[in-house]
């Protein structure tokens, strides 16, 4: 999943598995449709607010790619009772931290503050949910449009291999599919975004009924419930937006693509359509990616990087989102090697998994790695990937904030046979997108040549 952020940050991968964890939470639904989840954790005197709106770049209209994320930036520009800059200043003064991010299917906002400033965070979130448009103007839009264009320059155009993702999305998904473009959008579409678009988007998607609010940490749920009712209870500005239909694209053959970039070494991207997040086989494909590339003893790392030393790095991943997913393998060739060699080596390793399966120890190792990194991530009550973010993720996509143990089961139930079958079903050598990113003028290094 590619994310775009309000400001840049390091995001750690969050695996989706736990041991027998039981997370104590409460869920309420206010009459205006706002879903509210409380979670107590009194270890540190902090409170975390995490608010999801069930809208992402998949809802964008043609000619307005990048809008959901640009809109996310507008949410920090003040509202009726909050001046421009005040949102940040008040949270900074409180000793808090904050951020937001936009994916294809959701937009999240969070604050982590000392517990005595919880009401401030709720006030800020409610004010922009209720009154964002009253203070919106062209100057703010133009300013954040420039900021987001700089984000695109910094993280895509001026970054080595930065345009690869956009090229893959455009070729994996048909033009009508909402994953055809990235959340960052195109420069032209960012230029076209208007104040009218901001208003319409807000009225359609930023409604009490389309949001899920998780509050966690050193809190008293009964008291916080009163505060939430006070600040959000009167916002009754719309219902939940019906979920989008799953749309899993299929490829009929191999597509070879080529990009030249200001890079030292060629990099190979192989992408297959797979399955959406939480769908059958999603967890299996996650574990398959681990068997292929997590650690020195993983199949691809050991062969390409450790033994043969033809690749500098190799990564496999199941990129699953709301209505579709893709499985990807990415590898960078060392000097003197071509992407054709890398493709061949990768194909041989995948073919081995398809033919002979994996050993019990390999599967166990990846399950353990997944489980433990999930537990480590739950040490954070707030922020990206913390407990409140997970509660909202489960709630928004599955309607069940307490999905932790079921999520665990998705992974523990995967068998070596299931993994082998998934490799066979989802990683065919004749239906996929193969992108070569090569140094300028070095087309001979590309795959398929």
């Amino acid at each position, binding site marked *: 999943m590619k994310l775009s952020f309000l400001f840049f940050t390091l995001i750690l991968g969050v695996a989706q598995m736990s041991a027998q964890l039981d997370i104590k939470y409460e869920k309420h*639904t206010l009459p205006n449709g706002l879903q509210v989840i409380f979670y107590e954790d009194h270890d540190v005197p902090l409170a975390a607010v995490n608010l999801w709106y069930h809208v992402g770049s998949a809802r964008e209209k043609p000619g307005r790619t990048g809008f959901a994320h640009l809109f996310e930036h507008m949410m920090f520009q003040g509202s009726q009772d909050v001046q421009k800059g005040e949102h940040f200043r008040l949270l*900074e003064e409180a000793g808090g931290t904050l951020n937001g991010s936009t994916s294809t299917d959701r937009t999240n906002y969070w604050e982590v503050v*000392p517990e005595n*400033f919880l009401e401030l965070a709720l006030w800020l979130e409610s004010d922009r949910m209720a009154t964002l448009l009253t203070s919106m103007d062209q100057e703010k839009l133009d300013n954040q449009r420039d900021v987001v264009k700089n984000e695109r320059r910094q993280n895509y155009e001026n970054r080595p291999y930065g345009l690869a993702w956009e090229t893959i999305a455009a070729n994996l998904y048909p033009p009508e599919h909402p994953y055809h473009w990235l959340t960052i959008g195109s420069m032209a579409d960012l230029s076209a975004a208007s104040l009218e678009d901001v208003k319409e988007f807000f009225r359609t998607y930023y409604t009490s009924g389309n949001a899920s609010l998780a509050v966690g940490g050193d809190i008293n749920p009964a008291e916080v*419930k009163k505060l939430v009712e006070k600040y959000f209870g009167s916002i009754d500005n719309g219902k939940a937006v019906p979920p989008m239909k799953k749309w899993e694209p299929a490829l009929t053959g191999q597509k070879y693509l080529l990009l030249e970039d200001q890079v030292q070494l060629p990099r190979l991207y192989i992408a297959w359509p797979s399955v959406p997040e939480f769908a059958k086989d999603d967890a299996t494909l996650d574990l398959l990616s681990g068997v292929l590339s997590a650690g020195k003893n993983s199949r691809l790392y050991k062969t390409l990087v450790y033994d043969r030393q033809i690749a500098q790095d190799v990564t496999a991943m199941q990129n699953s989102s709301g209505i579709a997913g893709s499985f990807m393998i990415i590898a960078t060739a060392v000097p003197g090697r071509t992407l054709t060699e890398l493709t061949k080596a990768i194909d041989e390793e995948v073919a081995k998994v398809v033919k002979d399966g994996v050993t019990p*120890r390999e599967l166990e190792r990846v399950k353990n*790695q997944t489980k433990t990194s999930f537990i480590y991530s739950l040490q954070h009550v707030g922020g990206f990937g913390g407990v409140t973010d997970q509660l909202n993720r489960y709630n928004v996509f599955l309607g069940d904030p307490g999905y932790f143990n079921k999520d665990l089961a998705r992974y523990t139930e995967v068998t070596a046979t299931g993994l082998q079958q998934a490799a066979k079903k989802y990683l065919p050598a004749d239906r996929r997108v193969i992108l070569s990113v090569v140094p300028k003028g070095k087309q001979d290094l590309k795959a398929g040549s």
Partner: protein
Amino acid sequence: MRLPLVCVFLILAVTSALAQVDRSKKPEPGPTPQVKLPKLEHAQLTNGLHVVMVEQRQMPVIQLQLVIQTGSAADPKGKPGVAYVTAQMISEGTKTRLSLQIADDFDFIGAQYGASANEDGSFVTLLTLAEHFTKALAFFSDVLLNPVFPQSEYARVQKRIVTSLLQNKDQPEFVAGNVFSKMLYGEGHPYGEPVGGTETSVKSITTDDLRTFYDAYYRPNNATLIAVGDIHPKEVVAELEKVFGAWEKRDVPATTIPPSPAAAGPVIYIVDKPKAAQSQFRIGEIGLNRASDDYYRTLVLNQLLGGSFNSRINWKLREEKGYTYGARSAFSYRKEAGPFVVSAGVKTSVTDSSVILTLDELKRIRTELVPEKELSVAKSAIIRGLPRGFETVSDIARQITALVLYNLPDDYYSHIVENVEKVTAEDVQKAAQRYIHPDTDAVVIVGDVSAVKAPLEKLGYGKIVVVDDQGKPVK
């Protein structure tokens, strides 16, 4: 979070219709919560290894962190990268286990192992579930005590590091940072050399270099072991004595860092990146060391200058002008004076304007007294933000590492509040005048020379030198 709790409430609440709330009044905070800073327990093993422990039972996890008091500042002359490569190599083979075995042992129990170095120290860390602690500790101590630096593994690791250094040329942020350090400290000063080495230096480093560094500095009397998490300090000490007991102490050579050179500027260095969509810039100079009396003053100064989203430089360049996705400033406090730097990536066409606006902010913080409100926001941010630094076992281990590395007292964190509280607007101004010199700063820009050089020349900020990615002038 506490694990054993097993109760899930699902309440579909029905609340009465609510009146319109008055949001025009900002809510006031409740009483300031008591911040419980973790209690540090100390022990010393018979071989002199200092152990610092924190019992933290909320989650069944444990973080171990070994701090070696020597880092890249002790790299042999002409061989930057030795400390870093040594750290990378200790897990590539021990007396009893091969590289792949070591990786599999850690991975199979889901333990996250890492080793690295910076200018001041070398660090080996391990995050594990408490249930695997004994095993994890055995694996961890093995790589620390028994590495053999096998030539066959090193040949591979060395090539891999050299290739990644080659790849760093693609990253404008990396190039800008490297050239900036080099220009500030000059040839031969350890702070001017990249911690990870250069392609040339790493190619020249041998396993003998690594063994020599390891034998000299990886010694119990030059190290501190930090253990945080679901452990009982007394039990841990007994276990540590068992596995680390055989580690022999030995006199460790002192690391001498030469004095800082004079100001590098005013000068603008440009590294060409043809057709770059953005310019990455670094502006700054050599600042102060961690032991300086001005530490807290510069902490507050930086917070409001470029240390937060709302700080002057980010506000100006991003929220007012829309020139960047983000701009920031930072002091690096090290054993000796580290750099002060302002950094940002800006749209190519506003490179010169961004440099001017940044220099203007650096001048203004020297000449104008900071308004009281701005000062109090910055101080509050630091003081009230303190608990966020102690949330996870890794957070706590990181905080203790700073104490260990810079020889700070255990009650350091309990005194932050009063030390920050007493910083005045005059203090901030004096610190700015002492450490920020916008007339003699070094400016490094990685961007499209054909687009940015002429406008930068018009600024009249010292001479302009086009350099390569190693900081060498380009003809």
